[in-house]
Every structure is written in C-alpha cells, then in structure tokens.
C-alpha cells in the first residue's frame, strides 16, 4: 500500500490529497514517514482502529495467514518492496477510499487479506474522476 507514494506527484497535480492511515502510535507514524520517505504526505494513525471498524476492514488471523498472502509477499518483493519492522496490529487489514471534495464517495476497496491491494491505476482513474467534480 505504501507504493501509492510513487503516485503522489501525479495526485498533487490533480489537486487530490493523499493520506495514509495506520494503527500504531504517533511515533510509529513518524518513523514510517522517514523509513518510507513519505516527504510532506500526511501520515495519520488510528490506534483504536475506529475508522477501520467503521469501514468494516477485516481483522483476523485468517486474513493474515491465507495462502494468497505468500503470493502477494513474493510479488511485492519482486517489485522491490520489503516489509520493515511491523508496527501496529498484525491481523488488521486495510483498504482505500477515493472521496470527492465535500464527502461524496467515488471508490472504496477493502483488502481481503494481507497483500490484497486495489490496482493503483484503477485508484488513479477514480482520483481523476474525483478531481473533475
């Protein structure tokens, strides 16, 4: 998911904000920014996972240990991404929202398992739609 940072300039040019939300401490968010070279991108954290729960993002050991996870891990490694020190809840899954200014939903994606991410190009297409409104 951190791979979205590679499209940050494109989103900025569209006038679309890019926000990362994790679930550790604020200090972990800060370390993550440095480690992932996030620059000025906002990195927020939701230690109580209220937003995760509200959005219905999955949580459970089966989501972290399914066979698909190994495949996704190999794909990420082949693309040059490696997982650093894990900081947060290991069995919590994430997701992506694209929202128009003012709060109209354009796109939502909830990861089924670790490593299950929406195609970045699909998200970018939705971001362009959101920017037109």
């Amino acid at each position, binding site marked *: 998911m951190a791979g979205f940072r590679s499209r940050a300039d494109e989103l900025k040019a569209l006038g679309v904000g890019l926000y990362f939300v994790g679930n550790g401490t604020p200090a972990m968010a800060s370390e993550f920014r440095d480690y992932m070279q996030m620059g000025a991108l906002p990195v927020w*954290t939701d230690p109580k996972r209220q937003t995760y729960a509200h959005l219905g993002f999955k949580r459970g050991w089966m989501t972290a240990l399914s066979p698909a996870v190994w495949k996704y891990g190999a794909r990420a490694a082949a693309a040059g991404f490696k997982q650093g020190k894990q900081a947060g809840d290991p069995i919590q899954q994430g997701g992506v929202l694209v*929202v128009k200014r003012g*709060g109209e939903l354009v796109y939502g994606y909830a990861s089924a398992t670790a490593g299950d991410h929406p195609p970045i190009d699909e998200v970018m297409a939705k971001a362009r739609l959101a920017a037109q409104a």
Partner: protein
Amino acid sequence: MTPNLPALAPLTVLDEQGRAVPIGTAWRDAPAVLVWLRHFG
C-alpha cells in the same frame, strides 16, 4: 463496500504530533485518496 462517509467524517485519528484530527478533514477542501495501512512497516 458502502461506507457511510457523513458518519465516518467526525471520527478522529492522530497526526504525528498526537493531535486529534477528524478523518473528514481529508476531503473537506479537496478530493482525497485515503490509504488505510495494515500496519506501519
């Protein structure tokens, strides 16, 4: 997924300084892509 954004908007997250920020701040003034991570790392 069919999130209820008006209900989501006031829920607060923390910035790196530990200040509470309503998540809806992200889309208040501009469109936004929000990426919820499994964990930092």
